[in-house]
């Protein structure tokens, strides 16, 4: 449903993304992972049309992205970023429904959809008239997800959606998010730098480094048959603390 062919992006002399091919099948969760500055966020922003590729083309549901159709196509994409990106001057209700109201959707439909989503992300009714400043970090991410899902998009783009949350809430939300994805059957492209999170969510992992894709495949494949030493290093680096933790527990 999403096909990138030979897409590249350059900022001045810096190559943020080398010419890249990528296909995301419908209904799958694909996770872009890699160290900071590897180009994973650039790739996500290219898909959302927030930046224009220097070369190559992006095709979404048989339509090639262009500056003319991007506004239309974005209604078929939901986008969630790290801090939520909620509009501080709008209530939860207004944040979630802003685009639907702009499109003059039926008021009854909007209310109905809002309730549905609040139940889905388990956000209490009385939160609807609160402002973002009156919410916790976890609540803000729930609202942000509601806003992304409001128009029932085919594709969900998530840029480190849980990155700013403390570990307890993060763990809770990870489970809930995965359940929601499974329930909705949406195509998801998610960016994270946490290998455990990637393994938890992703059908397919795309490991990136220095603006290029190093290896694509399920976590198991990356762990068992790393394409190059970097893949192993990346996975080990994040597994090491966990191993130490397990070791420490043995001594007590």
């Amino acid at each position, binding site marked *: 449903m999403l096909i990138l062919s030979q897409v590249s992006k350059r900022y001045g002399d810096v190559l943020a993304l080398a010419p890249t091919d990528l296909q995301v099948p419908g209904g799958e969760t694909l996770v872009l992972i890699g160290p900071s500055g590897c180009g994973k966020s650039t790739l996500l922003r290219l898909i959302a049309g*927030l930046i224009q590729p220097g070369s190559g083309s992006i095709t979404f549901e048989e339509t090639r992205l262009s500056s003319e159709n991007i*506004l*239309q*196509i974005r209604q078929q994409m939901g986008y969630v970023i790290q801090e939520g990106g909620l509009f501080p*001057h709008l209530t939860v209700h207004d944040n979630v429904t*802003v685009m639907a109201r702009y499109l003059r959707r039926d008021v009854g439909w909007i209310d109905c959809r809002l309730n549905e989503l609040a139940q889905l992300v388990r956000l209490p009714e009385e939160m609807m008239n609160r*402002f973002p*400043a009156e919410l*916790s970090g*976890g609540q803000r991410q729930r609202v942000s997800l509601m806003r992304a899902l409001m128009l029932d998009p085919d594709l969900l783009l998530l840029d480190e959606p849980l990155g700013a949350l403390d570990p307890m809430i993060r763990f809770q939300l990870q489970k809930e998010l995965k359940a929601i994805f499974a329930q909705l059957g949406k195509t998801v492209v998610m960016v994270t730098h946490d290998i455990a999170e990637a393994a938890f969510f992703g059908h397919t992992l795309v490991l990136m480094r220095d603006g290029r894709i190093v290896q694509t495949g399920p976590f198991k494949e990356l762990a068992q048959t790393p394409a190059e030493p970097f893949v192993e290093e990346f996975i080990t680096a994040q597994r090491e603390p966990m191993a130490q933790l397990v070791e420490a527990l043995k001594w007590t």
Partner: protein
Amino acid sequence: MDVKQRIGVVLLVFCALLVHPVVRAEEAVSITVGSKGFTESVILGEMLRHLARQTGIEAHHQRQLGGTRVLWNALLSGEIDAYPEYTGTLLQEILVNENLQTEIELKQALTRRGLRMTPPLGFNNTYAIGMKAELAERLNLRTISDLKNHPELVLGFSNEFMDRADGWPGLQQGYQLPQHNVRGLDHDLAYRGIESGTLHVTDLYATDAEIDYYKLLALEDDLNYFPVYNAVILYRADVEQRAPEVAAMFNRLAGRINAPTMSRMNAQVKLNGEPESAVAAGFLKQALNLDVDYQIQTAWERFWQHTGEHLVLVGISLTAAIIFAVPLGILAARREHLGPIVLGVAGILQTIPSLALFVFMIPLLGIGGPPAIMALFLYSLLPIIRNTYAGLKDIPPAIVESAQALGLPSRARLYIVELPLATRAILAGIKTSAVINVGTAALSALIGAGGYGQPILTGIRLDDIGLILQGAIPAAVLALLVQGLFELIERGLLPKGLRIQTSGIKGPSL
């Protein structure tokens, strides 16, 4: 296109507002006289107004309009119909390039410009160089030449005298004067400097009331440097067609005012505090046996008039500034290449001294309200543009991007997300502009637009602190009121979500 049309309409309305008072002045058959920024000129101006009204025609007096150039240009362009002038000023300053020798030649030169001149009124208000009689005696000074032996004396001259060819530059050359400590200042302030001893020597007008009052000695012009400054009335030739009886009235003043009479009238106003209007009327009764029906405004009437004028100046210029500056700030923030240009131009406008900006507007828009409003408008732009720009630029990129990712078009993003978030900054800019505007509007009186500057200007001329405060205090109070008003508006306009302190209020986790 929509926006352009809207801006076009606003531009038209604004221009119409600017032009409106001028149009109205030309519709009615009326005579406008002007006067320069010193008491004698104001008294003569009042006399002209009384004389014109005697004929049943409506007459206005633009008091203390400014210096010679401002009055001369206003007369040429027809914004005023008459003003009192001096032959020496015409020959030595205004028409100096024509090298005119006789009064006949002068009259011809004026006729070529569509102007008329009455015969001399009867006094020669030449420049004189004066100092405290006591100091002159101590240093044994009698003539201007004697100043050569005292380079240590501090000289202070009226601003006009400093600049004009027949003023200080010519005097210094003619007498070979050695003094270097020379400063320009307001004529009326110079007397106070002399009194306090910070100044030793200044220029005087021969009919100044202060010569006696401050016990000054006019040094003898032993080289006959100063030309004759016979007072005359200049008026436009078309007055003879539009209102021939008014021109005839003006000419009745010829030869009727001698130097002691003028000195006495100056003293009545400056030293006894009598209104110029009353002094002028008294003279007309005595010399021409005219019964002038004049009204002296009460302090409250003056206050309300100045308040009205000030509010009009501030209201129109500030409203226009908001209408123009907010879109310009948006343009600067949204078009990368236009930002530096817009901010740069507005910044340059702000660096022009406010007084100069007012004077620059005179050739373009004449005198009175329109140039003052234009100057105030230009002066109010920068704070609003800059704050609008900064307010939009300071919105976190994550929020701008979220709005984009939702699929909101550019205009909708602006109205739904960006402008509400920039409200506080934009209002702060407007508040700054409003306070600057109210203060700067006091300068409008210098170009005949009235307002709270008028009593300040008159107060400086008459050395009357009370009168200065009558303008200064209301101006300060108005600035505070305007600031308070915008704080109320801010309370109403600022989105509720932005008033919540982020810290402290936190819902339960999850």
